[in-house]
């Protein structure tokens, strides 16, 4: 819900979802294709800068959103940097610790590179999606998708789920306030009790809500399909062309770097072979 609030207030609210999809898709693709951590981190920095300047959200908020995946990624990144095994068989060792005989843990240039690359790729992918969610309200996205061939049932489900999440968030915070007012959250024990009560209440409330919703839909002659007006911001041709060009250039650059490196590596190998 917070994301949707932000999307509604973003400076890019009026830009067509097609352009935004293209933009975020291109970066997502780049994050998938690229196998060089310098490229990935550069793109990540660029896109973050873009998100911060173009969308007009408070930087602190943006960083806090980024911190969520970062918190999950850092531990797994740390695990990846450490290699287990016969330390004698590892190359480019930066740090090592013998555990038992020749067995031990070590950080090598390779494991470090892999970890940095994977964390970078995940962050880049996340930022690409973040750009989309922070600039496009759910309403516009579903309208756009349903106009371009997403089955009606799927969009209806998304819309209803979205509406339910909104209601849930409101109800949960109302119940929580009511519980706090009666000191339901002062200690861990009461907090646990309160939260289980909250979940139970939400469950019963959602059944009630579903019942009332279907009655309300019937009152307005519901016939089995939720048809509503869709309003999608139009495409801006010049901007679309510019964005496409930038995306193509970026992907081209990523690919050439990929190809260039492997070509180089290949020729090195060839030289080694000839020697």
């Amino acid at each position: 819900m917070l994301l949707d609030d932000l999307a509604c207030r973003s400076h890019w609210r009026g830009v067509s979802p097609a352009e935004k999809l293209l933009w975020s898709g291109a970066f997502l693709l780049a994050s998938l294709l690229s196998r060089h951590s310098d490229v990935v981190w550069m793109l990540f920095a660029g896109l973050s800068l873009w998100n911060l300047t173009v969308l007009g959200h408070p930087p602190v908020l943006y960083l806090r959103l980024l911190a969520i995946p970062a918190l999950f990624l850092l531990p797994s990144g740390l695990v990846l940097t450490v290699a287990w095994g016969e330390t004698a068989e590892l190359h480019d060792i930066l740090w090592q610790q013998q555990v038992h005989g020749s067995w031990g843990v070590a950080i090598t240039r390779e494991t470090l590179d892999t970890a940095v690359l994977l964390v970078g790729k995940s962050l880049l992918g996340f930022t690409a999606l973040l750009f989309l969610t922070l600039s496009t309200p759910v309403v516009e996205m579903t309208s756009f998708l349903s106009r371009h061939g997403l089955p009606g049932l799927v969009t209806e489900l998304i819309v209803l789920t979205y509406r339910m999440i909104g209601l849930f968030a409101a109800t949960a915070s109302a119940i929580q306030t009511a519980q706090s007012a009666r000191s339901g959250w002062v200690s861990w024990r009461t907090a646990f009790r309160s939260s289980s009560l909250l979940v139970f209440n939400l469950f019963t409330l959602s059944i009630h809500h579903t019942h009332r919703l279907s009655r309300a839909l019937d009152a307005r002659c519901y016939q089995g399909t939720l048809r509503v007006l869709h309003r999608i911001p139009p495409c801006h041709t010049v901007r679309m062309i510019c964005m496409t060009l930038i995306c193509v250039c970026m992907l081209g650059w990523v690919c050439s770097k990929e190809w260039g490196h492997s070509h180089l590596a290949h020729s090195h190998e060839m030289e080694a072979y000839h020697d």
Partner: protein
Amino acid sequence: MIDELLRYEEVHYSYSGGSPALSGVNLGITRGRRTAILGRNGCGKTTLMLMGNGLLRPQRGSVWFDGKPMDYSKDGLMQVRSRVGFIFQETESQLFSASVEQDVSFGPFNLGWDEHRVAEATELALSQTGCDAFRHKPTHHLSGGQKKRAAVAGVVAMHPTIILADEPTAHLDPQGVDDLIDLFTTLHAGGMTFAVATHNLVFARSWFDDAIVMSEGRPLASGPTSEILADTNLLKKAGLYSKYSGE
């Protein structure tokens, strides 16, 4: 002859496993007039109103709309519901869509109108009800008063003959109540019939032509609002009298 738009004949209704919610209701809602349905919590106002839109079916007795007994087939209900707008007490459950504009366009689409006509009706309803300013907002970002207006817009867009509103002023602040009454006044001036359940006697006194007082599932009295509300004994009997109201 009185032109009755809605008529209840000996209507009985009990919810499953409960005591009777309506027991022998006989009353009429006159076309073009504003009727208040008064009564304390649990007296059966909501049940009565739901029957006016065919959402509940009497277990005994019958409901008549525009001179014909209610037809509970799919097409019959469509006919009735396209002309009877219902404003629910819990606005939350009435608004289902992600944005106000989308929500308002839902009813008109169900009437089988083409997109152009739906867009026109939506536009008109949004401006009539003063929802223009927040038409693109998600419905959960609205204030209570705005939600009510959005719900009214969703009904008005279908061009109904009568609006049934269930305790529309509940949960609204005084300004919100005033805005809503102003909106109802405009709609009434355009020829809309109103039947409104409420226990807000100030609202009842100032706005309605007729009043029906309900108690324990049946009407105690009905007539012009000025006469009904002057009868202190009646109000006491119906549990509507408050010694703090200063009247």
